[in-house]
């Protein structure tokens, strides 16, 4: 299973499924990362975490631990 965490900088991936539950999952979905949406991985923070992605035409910062819950292809 490939997750958003594995996606490389500069890559555009498509969300397949969201794992996990509760607050973090809801928050990720509230911010617009839902099934079928395309996510562009823009960059890594200088210290290697979190990741900056572009989704629904805006910039979002997400921790790698949370990105692991997002299955992509």
């Amino acid at each position, binding site marked *: 299973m490939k997750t958003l965490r594995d996606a490389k900088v500069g890559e555009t991936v498509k969300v397949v499924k*969201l794992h996990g*539950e*509760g*607050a*973090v*999952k*809801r*928050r*990720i*979905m*509230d*911010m*617009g990362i*839902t*099934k079928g*949406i395309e996510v562009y991985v823009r*960059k*890594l*923070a*200088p*210290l*290697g*975490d*979190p990741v*900056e992605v572009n989704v*629904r*035409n*805006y*910039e*979002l*910062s*997400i*921790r790698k631990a*949370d990105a692991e819950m997002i299955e992509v292809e």
Partner: protein
Amino acid sequence: MDKQLRIALAGNPNSGKTTLFNKLTGSNQFVGNWPGVTVEKKEGKLIVDREVILTDLPGIYSLSPYTLEEVVARNYLIEEKPDAILNIVDATNLERNLYLTTQLTELGIPVVIALNMMDLVKKAGDVVNVKELSRQLGCPVVEISALKGDGVADAAKAAIEAAKHGKTLPQHSFSGPVEHALAHIEEVTVHNLPEEQQRWYAIKVFERDEKVLEQLNIPAGVRAHIEQDIAAAEKELDDDAESIITNERYVYIGNMLKGIYKKKGKGQLSTSDKIDKVVTNRILALPIFVVVMFLVYALAMGTSIADGGIAIGTFLTDWTNDVLGGAWLQDGSRAILEGWGAAPWLVGLISDGILAGVGAVLGFVPQMLVLFLMLCLLEDCGYMARIAFIMDRIFRRFGLSGKSFIPMLVGTGCGIPGVMASRTIENERDRRMTIMTTTFMPCGAKMPIIGLIAGALFGGSTWVATSAYFIGVAAIVISGIMLKKTKMFAGDPAPFVMELPAYHLPAWGNVLRGTWERGWSFIKRAGTVIVVSSIVIWFLTSFGSVNGQFGMVDDLYEDDAVVTDEYIAVVADRMGIPEDEVEPMDDSILARVAQPVSVVFKPLGFGDWKPTAATVTGLVAKEEVVANFGIMYAYDDQEGEEELEENGDQIWDRVAEDFNAFSGGHGQLAAFAFMIFNLLCAPCFAAIGAIKREMNSRKWTWFAIAYQCGFAWVIAFIVWQLGRLFAGGVNAIGLIVALVLLALLLWQLFKPYKEAQKLTVK
């Protein structure tokens, strides 16, 4: 008279909501907090109609039960039922903004949409069919530019009209299995609730929203019945109920926008993207961050302009302290009052008590205004979010936010603005943790204490000051790790999924207003606390019982009938000092109280009344610690000597002698423990006032103070007891207790810990 209309302003963070609120209400605003939480609440009267109250809800992305801001907003909307919602929508980011709109339209409250930043959309060549958007959403849409003020009055009028006559019905529907379940839920559980709110409640029940389920208290049988419908929908759509709803909202918006929003072309980088490419570049990000932080610090708290630095803040504060506060207010008022022939106690109360306290507060104001101005600038232009992005990795390990860096940095200058700078942290748990730990940083006023100890007992060694910073940082790290595992902090989850808003030029109106609001709230709240406490401390040091007579000790000591030679001998004996060193202050309430209280510090090695009294007066201002040492070690500047130096070097010998005497020859160790305690214990009253203001809760304020004092005591205790293992003279019981405390500390530090998933509000 008609019922007063109330309109709620709702919208995403960074959608221009603050700008719109300011444009709609002008100067007519009341700033406070939502009850019991650290979230700021603003209300104002509309400029177009002074009879209408506009309530600014916290910036939110959704009405989920998981973040404090969202819970505050939805509780207000459901319980207070405002007459209309003015929903500001960022036209450059329609999809995510309308996601909140779909939820707002379900509340049974008329909604009016203020479509902001349409000018930017048009400039980019994109097209939004506003008429069609309004038709599809079922509510009026007004195009505005909050920054320029275009259309703002029209939006307000539309909202008033809607509040009087409007009605909004949600236009979107969910898929078959969901609607089927919703119909059932409406039938069996929510039919006795107000009709217009039934849809909202039904959807929340379907989502298994804990807060709503708790509130409705559905009987178990009914609950099981509903659960079947929900489970059926979940099975058919292969997802959990909450995610189904979220997903379908976004799908609905996506389909709707296909016919409404036309993007000209895509791919080219915006100006904001170009800036961000440099500013958060992997290599350049940290150096740029250091430069920005250096500038903030150097301009506000660094070396004053008068001394060749660039700090306008320090320059103004020095002037306020020395000229306005010291010379004009304190000395001036004394001259005037004495000229009027006022009683000495009254002169003392007003000049030395109240005005000295007010002066101390005023002194901070210019420095803080400069600092807040820069913080507001960073916030408004979008860099603050990047600070969290850059520093998150380090700080989250200690239960803090990447944005905690700024309060800590500012705290090395002064803890008060440090505590107040925590307001930019979104997560309440991180914010509270930051408020509690910021004052561990050695602030400017603690420097003289370090100077005194280093000079008097360590031959001026620089490692003492270095160790003070190290201890401050270590205290923050250790406290963060320990506290985040405690019950007080374990409650709330901290998802760090954060929008990085586009950079833009700061809106000066917002920046200046934000600066002033913070400055004013400091003057008001910290001001009252410090004034009252200054009076109390002034009273404790000025009054006392001398040879059976109560009054101002300075006056009573003038009277030889009261202060007889025999009495002086008694005092000298009680205080353990030679007779010729007896001072009026030795009979003050403070000295009397400090004597028994000093028992508390016995296990820390400095259980003597002098360091105890100095520690207590340190609550007024940490500078007072050294000043009081000066008084207690009988430094008298009236006998032709120079004024006591800031680090008290004239009394170093006497301090060293005394510390060595009462600690049984371990003066260095006792002094170091004394310094640790004073660095880590509760900050001055002004900073405590700031903590109270930011925590917005008596319980949390007391918890913070108790924790700081307790932590300071434990660390100083361990240092003193374990230190004697090497210095000689071990106390067996003390050593065992110290080892137990150390073990507890380490256990709390290293025990496993799991993030919570639920938000606990009230």
